[in-house]
């Protein structure tokens, strides 16, 4: 077992240990905290496919996170109010259906955004993804049907067949299970032919074209897959909070997702998990001490960017190795 595999395992087990410990000592609030960690980690695992493997600095992944959230909110509200959706389709509170909807919706939007944004590169790509996410943000604010600026409440948490998602620990396991699936997907992609082409596109686009592989299609596929994973996380996030609002689509959210990855380690398997655990813990404990915790988060981030590149996984496992 390589050092990185070992560290990934330790990080994931640490996340799993939090709610088990919390249940044992009766501090159920920490289950919610761990669930939040798992969901944000999943969202960042999605972004890590585009950003870590493909070098695509998407500053618009909140769009997909929010679309996943709205997929959950809209389907659940139609089910709750027993109103059919357009084309007479029924609403639903079944998580698998909601997840599938979140995946399809965020994938389609990513296909459109990616098709335009990936014609550009570098700073243009950053700004354009940011701008498109902002477009969806404003659209959500000004579209009154689903709460507009006020957002949309989910009155009862959605259901997963065979388990009771109202129980905090059970819902954690649902989220943790999806996070594991996300990590498995990431590691399969990374080691596959597709991943080889994607990582080559990041390192040397000209070389990839010269062996006869067009980088555009590879990147577009990666961007879409990445958005789908983040979309599922968005649906879970809405279910955790029983609420979805435009703030899930805000550019601050996009920034936060990037921050998670940087804190954990760009392109590293467990980077987003470590980053999300660190971030949520920081938010909670520092937020408990001072209202101004974001000031210190900012200073910490500056220190990480300027002096500690590689994030947590980089510090623990050293440089990444590619076969």
């Amino acid at each position, binding site marked *: 077992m390589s050092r990185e595999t070992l560290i990934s395992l330790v990080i994931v087990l640490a996340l799993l240990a939090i709610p088990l410990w919390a249940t044992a000592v009766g501090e159920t609030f920490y289950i919610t905290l761990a669930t939040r960690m798992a969901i944000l980690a999943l969202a960042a695992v999605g972004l890590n496919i585009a950003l870590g493997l493909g070098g695509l600095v998407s500053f618009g992944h909140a769009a997909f996170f929010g679309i996943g959230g709205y997929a959950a909110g809209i389907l659940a509200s139609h089910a709750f109010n027993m109103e059919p959706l357009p084309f007479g389709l029924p609403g639903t509170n079944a998580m698998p259906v909601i997840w599938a909807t979140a995946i399809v919706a965020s994938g389609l939007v990513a296909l459109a955004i990616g098709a*335009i944004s990936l*014609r550009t590169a570098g*700073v243009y790509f950053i*700004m354009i993804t940011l701008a498109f996410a902002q*477009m969806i943000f404003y659209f959500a604010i000004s579209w009154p049907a689903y709460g507009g600026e006020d957002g949309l409440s989910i009155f009862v948490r959605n259901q997963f067949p065979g388990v009771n998602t109202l129980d905090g620990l059970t819902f954690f396991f649902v989220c943790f299970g999806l996070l594991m699936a996300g990590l498995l997907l990431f590691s399969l992609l990374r080691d596959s032919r597709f991943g080889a082409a994607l990582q080559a596109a990041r390192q040397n686009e000209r070389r990839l074209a010269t062996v006869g592989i067009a980088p555009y299609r590879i990147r577009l596929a990666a961007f879409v897959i990445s958005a789908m994973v983040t979309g599922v996380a968005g649906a879970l996030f809405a279910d955790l909070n029983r609420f979805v609002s435009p703030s899930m689509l805000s550019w601050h959210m996009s920034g936060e997702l990037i*921050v998670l990855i940087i804190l954990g380690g760009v392109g590293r398997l467990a980077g987003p998990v470590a980053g999300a655990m660190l971030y949520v813990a920081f938010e909670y404990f520092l937020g408990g001490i001072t209202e*101004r915790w974001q000031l210190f988060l900012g200073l910490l981030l500056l220190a990480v960017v*300027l002096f500690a590149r590689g994030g947590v996984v980089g510090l623990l496992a050293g440089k990444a190795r590619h076969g």
Partner: protein
Amino acid sequence: MQTALLIEQILNGLQFGVMLFLMAAGLTLIFGVMGLINLAHGSLYMVGAFACATVAAATGSFWLGLIASLAAAAAAGALIEVTVIRRLYDRDHLDQVLATFALILVFSEGTRWVFGSIPLYLNIPPLLSGAIPLPGGSAYPLYRVAIIGVGIAVAVGLHLLITRTRLGMRIRAGESDREMIGALGVDIRTLYTVVFALGAALAGLAGALVGAIQSVQVGMGEPVLILAFVVIVIGGIGSIHGALVGALLVGLIDTLGRFLLPVALAAFMGPSAAASIGASLASILIYVFMALVLAIRPRGLFAAAG
């Protein structure tokens, strides 16, 4: 009456565009010369607005406030350039995005710490508080006309600065070849600090000018920052001329879209549906415009060669 309203909306669009130009000019200059993407530019806008509101409240003079906004934003810009930004020039865009995102957090929370969460208000100076008559019998606030005037003056000033002065020559040299400018014996570190402070001062000016129309509060710079990104993406990153054209286009399209779309849709549907759908569509219009421009010219309207 419709015509007067339309003229008023066009003027509003110009005023909005000019304000976006003040932001976009600094961003595009900083990117063109130093190759840096600066998310914290919106924070400098906020610093300018807070400085102006504070000094104006203390002294009773908007004009002193305006000077303070320029000075404070330039100083804040120079400070972050020397302490943080300077270390980012050789880094990739991801590091730049992250570090400047961190700066936003620091600026926003820092400002909230000092000034609290309650918005400040800044009054329009008496000299500019009148209105000028428009054809058709309505009137338009003089202050907004003055903003348009300031924007035009800054555009002309920047044009002269870049084409006619020694500093401008160095800026152009820095854009085309960083090593050459070093070889010319120009102190490149100082040049970068000056350019950054200049961009910051323009952002601060914009913040102060807008502060008198809207409220002065934490986070006010962020929506403007993103629109300024749209502007320079449309105009072509690095081009001042592109920033001007892009800013005016975005200002006009956004303002007129919000005005005309509900009116146009009312021809097809009921007034309340037209109003709500019109507002939703208007809010995304400039992004659609950006997508169109990019589909035709991926590097913007005034893309620098190469």
